[in-house]
C-alpha cells in the first residue's frame, strides 16, 4: 500500500515543480485523443471545466449529472468570490503569499507541492473566465475589483456581486455547451452513478441509474473522473444543496480507492440559524459579509435575556455593552479570521450563555458601522442580493437590525486520496474539486473552493490525465458486455430490490435526520473520545435498523426521489462511521477538526505535529470488516511550521 500512496510530488524548488512535471509527463497526439474516451461524473466547477477542457483537446467525453441540466450543480450557490494572486490592488500579494496563506489556513495538513501549484495557476483562471465573458465586478476605470476574505491580509478575491459561483459555473457550463454542440462531449442529465466498474484493477466505466425512467445503464471509458463534490449532507442539515451527496466517492472507496482525511469537515461561521425541526437545509450568508459586518454578542446576560424574550431589539443595545469578540480575541485579523476560528469563537460565546435568539444558538453580524461609514447605497451594491435573501427567509430587514448567524456544515476537505496527477489509488480513476482531499488540509480558506475546482478542471487534469491515457492509445474501447459490467449491474439491481423489499415502518428522512443529529452532536464542531466512540456505536445500530425497517415507496421503474434518497442515506450511514473513526484516531486539534482534549488554555487548537503530521488514508477491507488506516507523511521543505496565529 505504501507504494500506492506515492504522492509523486516532483523533486526540486517549489516554484519549478509544476513546470518540470509538465515537461516530463507524456502527451497524447491529436489523432490518438480521438480514440480515447473519458467519463466525467458531476458538472460543478470541477466537472464542467474538466469536461469542456478535455473536449477541446479532442478526447471523447461523456459527462453525467443528477440534475436536469449541468448548470444546477451546487457550485452555483457559492457567493463570495474566487482567489487569485494577481496583486492588482498593489498590496504586496504574490503566488508565494497565496500559497503560504492556504498552507497556514489549512493548519499544515496539506501538501506543499499541490498547494503551490494551485496558487500558481490561480491567475490563469481569472484570465480564462474573463475571456469567457464572466461579468466580474469592475472599478469605474474598467478594470477588475477585489475584496478581502478570511485568513488573508490582502485583497485577492475576484467577485460577481454575491453570485460568483453562479457566474463561474455558467462560464464553465457555456464552455461545456460549446463542446456538446461540437459533438466532442455527450451530456447525460438526470443520471446518478451507482457503481464504479473495474476490469483487472483499473477503472473502466460506471453503472448509472436514469432518474427519469429507472433504467440501469452501463457506460465504459478509458478513464473515469469523479467530480461529484463533498459529503456534507451526511450531517442532514448543511449548506449543501438537497441532492448533493458523497455516494460516488463512497462507491470508489468500496472498490478500493483510498479515502483521505474523512473527518475534515468545514463548519462555516455565517449561516442563518436553525429555526425548528421542520427545517430541511441551512442557508449560508457569504463570508464576504465579514469585510464590512462586525460580529458581536451582548456583554451583559440581562441583555441576552431581553433579546431572547424579544423585549428589546439588538439595535437598542449601546456600543459599550457589545462584545465584538473576534476583534477582542484576534486584533490582527479581527472579523476576518479563518472559518474554523470564527466558528469555534461563536460556539464558545453561545456555550457560555450569550446566544442571542430563543434557541441560544446565534450571534449578531452587524452592518451598522459600515452603513454609517459608507452609506446604505454602497452596502446595497456590495451585498444587495444577500440582504434580500436574508430578509426573505427571516422576515427581518438587515439594514435596520443585525443579522443573526450561527455555524453550519459547509464543505468537506476530506475526500478521495489523489496523487500529484489527481489520480486515485485505482489506476485510471481520477478525482477533482471538493471530491478529492488534496489542497485544503484541515481547513479551507474562503474563496478557495472555486479556485480549486477550476484549477483542477481547466489547468491540471487536462495535462495530467494525458500521462495515464498515453499508455492506452492501443487499448480498444471498453466493452460494456464484459462480465465485470454485468456483475456490477447485478449488484446495483440487487441493492435496489433489497431496499424495496424491506417495507418497514420508517421513512428515509427519519434515518437521515437521526444520523445527522448523531454526527452534529459528536462529530461536529467539537469532538472528544467518549462522544466519538458513542457515535460509532450509534451509527452501527442505526444502520442495522435502517436495513430492517426503512420504507421506500413506489418502484424502480419510475421517477422516484425516495429511492434516490434511500440509496444515498444507506451510503451516508457507512461514511458517517468512517468520519467518526478518523476523528477518533486523530488525537490532536487542527483546522476544523477540534478535539476537546487537545486545546490551549484560551481554547485554541493544539496540533501534535510529532505524531499526526500525516494524511490519514483509509482502505476498505470488506463488508463489516474494520477499515485499515495508512499514513502519507507530510514533508514541509519550504515553509516554517508554526502555530497558527491570527492575533498579531
Amino acid at each position, binding site marked *: 500500500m505504501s507504494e500506492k500512496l506515492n504522492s509523486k510530488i516532483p523533486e526540486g524548488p517549489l516554484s519549478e515543480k509544476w513546470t518540470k512535471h509538465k515537461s516530463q509527463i507524456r502527451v497524447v497526439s491529436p489523432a490518438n485523443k480521438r480514440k480515447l474516451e473519458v467519463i466525467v461524473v458531476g458538472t460543478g466547477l470541477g466537472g464542467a471545466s474538466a469536461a469542456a477542457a478535455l473536449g477541446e483537446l479532442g478526447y471523447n467525453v461523456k459527462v453525467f449529472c443528477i440534475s436536469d441540466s449541468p448548470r444546477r450543480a451546487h457550485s452555483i450557490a457559492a457567493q463570495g468570490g474566487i482567489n487569485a494572486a494577481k496583486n492588482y490592488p498593489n498590496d504586496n500579494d504574490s503566488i508565494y503569499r497565496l500559497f503560504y496563506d492556504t498552507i497556514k489556513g489549512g493548519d499544515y495538513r496539506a501538501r506543499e507541492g499541490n498547494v503551490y501549484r494551485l496558487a500558481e495557476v490561480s491567475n490563469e483562471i481569472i484570465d480564462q473566465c474573463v475571456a*469567457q465573458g464572466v*461579468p466580474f465586478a*469592475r472599478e469605474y476605470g474598467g*478594470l477588475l475589483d477585489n475584496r478581502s476574505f478570511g485568513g488573508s491580509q490582502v485583497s485577492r478575491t475576484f467577485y460577481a456581486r454575491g453570485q460568483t459561483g453562479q457566474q463561474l459555473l455558467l462560464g464553465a457550463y457555456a464552455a461545456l455547451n460549446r463542446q456538446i454542440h461540437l459533438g466532442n462531449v455527450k451530456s447525460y442529465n438526470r443520471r446518478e452513478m451507482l457503481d464504479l466498474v473495474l476490469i483487472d484493477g483499473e477503472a473502466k466505466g460506471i453503472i448509472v441509474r436514469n432518474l427519469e425512467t429507472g433504467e440501469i445503464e452501463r457506460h465504459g471509458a478509458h478513464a473515469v473522473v469523479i467530480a461529484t463534490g463533498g459529503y456534507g449532507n451526511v450531517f442532514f442539515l448543511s449548506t449543501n444543496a438537497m441532492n448533493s451527496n458523497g455516494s460516488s466517492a463512497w462507491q470508489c472507496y468500496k472498490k478500493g480507492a483510498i479515502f483521505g482525511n474523512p473527518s475534515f469537515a468545514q463548519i462555516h461561521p455565517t449561516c442563518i440559524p436553525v429555526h425548528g425541526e421542520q427545517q430541511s437545509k441551512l442557508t449560508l450568508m457569504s463570508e464576504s459579509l465579514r469585510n464590512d459586518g462586525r460580529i458581536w454578542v451582548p456583554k451583559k446576560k440581562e441583555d441576552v435575556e431581553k433579546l431572547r424574550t424579544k423585549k428589546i431589539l439588538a439595535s437598542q443595545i449601546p456600543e459599550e455593552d457589545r462584545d465584538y469578540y473576534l476583534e477582542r480575541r484576534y486584533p490582527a485579523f479581527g472579523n476576518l479570521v479563518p472559518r474554523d476560528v470564527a466558528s469555534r469563537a461563536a460556539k464558545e460565546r453561545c456555550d457560555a450563555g450569550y446566544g442571542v435568539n430563543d434557541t441560544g444558538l446565534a450571534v449578531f453580524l452587524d452592518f451598522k458601522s459600515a452603513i454609517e461609514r459608507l452609506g446604505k447605497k454602497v452596502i446595497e451594491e456590495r451585498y444587495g442580493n444577500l440582504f434580500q*435573501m436574508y430578509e426573505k427567509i427571516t422576515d427581518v430587514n438587515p439594514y435596520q437590525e443585525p443579522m443573526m448567524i450561527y455555524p453550519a456544515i459547509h464543505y468537506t476537505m476530506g475526500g478521495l486520496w489523489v496523487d500529484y496527477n489527481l489520480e486515485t489509488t485505482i489506476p485510471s480513476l481520477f478525482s477533482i474539486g471538493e471530491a478529492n482531499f488534496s489542497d485544503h488540509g484541515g481547513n479551507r480558506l474562503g474563496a478557495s473552493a472555486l479556485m480549486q475546482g477550476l484549477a483542477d478542471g481547466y489547468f491540471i487534469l487536462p495535462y495530467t490525465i494525458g500521462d495515464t491515457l498515453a499508455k492506452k492509445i492501443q487499448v480498444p474501447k471498453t466493452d460494456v458486455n464484459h462480465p465485470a459490467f454485468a456483475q456490477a449491474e447485478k449488484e446495483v439491481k440487487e441493492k435496489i430490490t433489497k431496499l424495496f423489499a424491506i417495507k418497514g415502518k420508517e421513512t428515509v428522512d427519519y434515518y437521515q435526520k437521526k444520523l445527522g443529529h448523531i454526527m452534529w452532536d459528536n462529530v461536529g464542531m467539537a469532538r472528544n473520545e467518549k462522544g466519538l466512540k458513542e457515535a460509532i456505536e450509534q451509527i452501527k445500530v442505526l444502520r442495522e435498523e435502517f436495513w430492517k425497517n426503512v420504507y421506500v*415507496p413506489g418502484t424502480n421503474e419510475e421517477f422516484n426521489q425516495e429511492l434516490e434518497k434511500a440509496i444515498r442515506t444507506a451510503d451516508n450511514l457507512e461514511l458517517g462511521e468512517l468520519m467518526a473513526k478518523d476523528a477518533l484516531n486523530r488525537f490532536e486539534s487542527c483546522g476544523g477538526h477540534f478535539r476537546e482534549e487537545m486545546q490551549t488554555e484560551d481554547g485554541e487548537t493544539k496540533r501534535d505535529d510529532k505524531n499526526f503530521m500525516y494524511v490519514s488514508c483509509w482502505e476498505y477491507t470488506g463488508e463489516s470488516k474494520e477499515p485499515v488506516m495508512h499514513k502519507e507523511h507530510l514533508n514541509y521543505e519550504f515553509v516554517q511550521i508554526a502555530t497558527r496565529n491570527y492575533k498579531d
Partner: protein
Amino acid sequence: MDFTLKVWRQKSAKDKGYFGTYQVKDISPDTSFLEMMDILNEQLIRENIDPVAVSKGCHDGPVAFDHDCREGICGMCSLYINGRAHGPDDDITTCQLHMRKFKDGETITIEPWRSAGMPVIKDLVINRNALDQILQAGGYVSVNTGGVPDANTIPIRRENAEESMDAASCVGCGACIATCKNGSAMLFVSARVSSLALLPQGKVEAARRVKAMVSKMDELGFGACTNTRACEMECPKRISITHIARMNREFLKAKIQD
C-alpha cells in the same frame, strides 16, 4: 397554520393527470414552501405504510417535485402556486417562499409549469432540456482553455459590466416561458444574448450567436413575443424585457449584415 393543498398528480408524461387534495396541519409560518411539501410527502409516505390508511384509499404516494439548492440560485425548483409562477411573493423562486405569505386555513393550488416546450415528467416535475439546447446552439464565447490575454487587458465600462451581470443573473428556471401566454422563451434567450452582447468578449461573434440561438428557439417550437411583459413580472431575478429589445436589435443587425 393549517392548509388544504390541491396538488397536480400525473404518473408519467403519457398518463392523464388529476388534482389530489390533501390537508397539512401545524405548519410553522417560518417554514419554507418546499419544507411544507416535505412535510406533506412524509405524511403521504406514512399513509402508505399504515394499513388502516391504505384500506381507506390513501395510497397516492409522495409528490414528485424538482428542488435542489433551496436558496434561490440553482433554478431547479418551479411550481405554479395559486396561479402564479413561484407563488405569491415577488422576486423569489419557490424555494425562497415562506408559509407566512399565506393565510391560515387557505386552500393552495399547486401545478407544474404548463408549456408545450416543457412537458411533465411526473407530478410537478417537468422536462427543460430545450433550454439547454438553445444555449448549446450559441450561448458562449468560442474560446478554448488557455492562451487567453491577461484579465485586465480589456477595460470594460462599469455600467456595461453591471448590466451584463443583471442579465447573467438568469437561473434558467423557465418561469418566463410558463407565464407567457404564447409560451415564448424570449426573456430566457435574450438574457444570455444580451449579457454577452454588452461585453467586448462577446461582440466578436455576436451576429452568429444571436442567429443560431433564435433559430434553435424557433425550431423547438417556442412561441413569439407580443410584449405583454408577463415574463418580466414573474421573473424571480427581475430580468428586464429591455434585454429582449437588445436581442431584437442584435438579430436585426445580424440579418442586415447578411
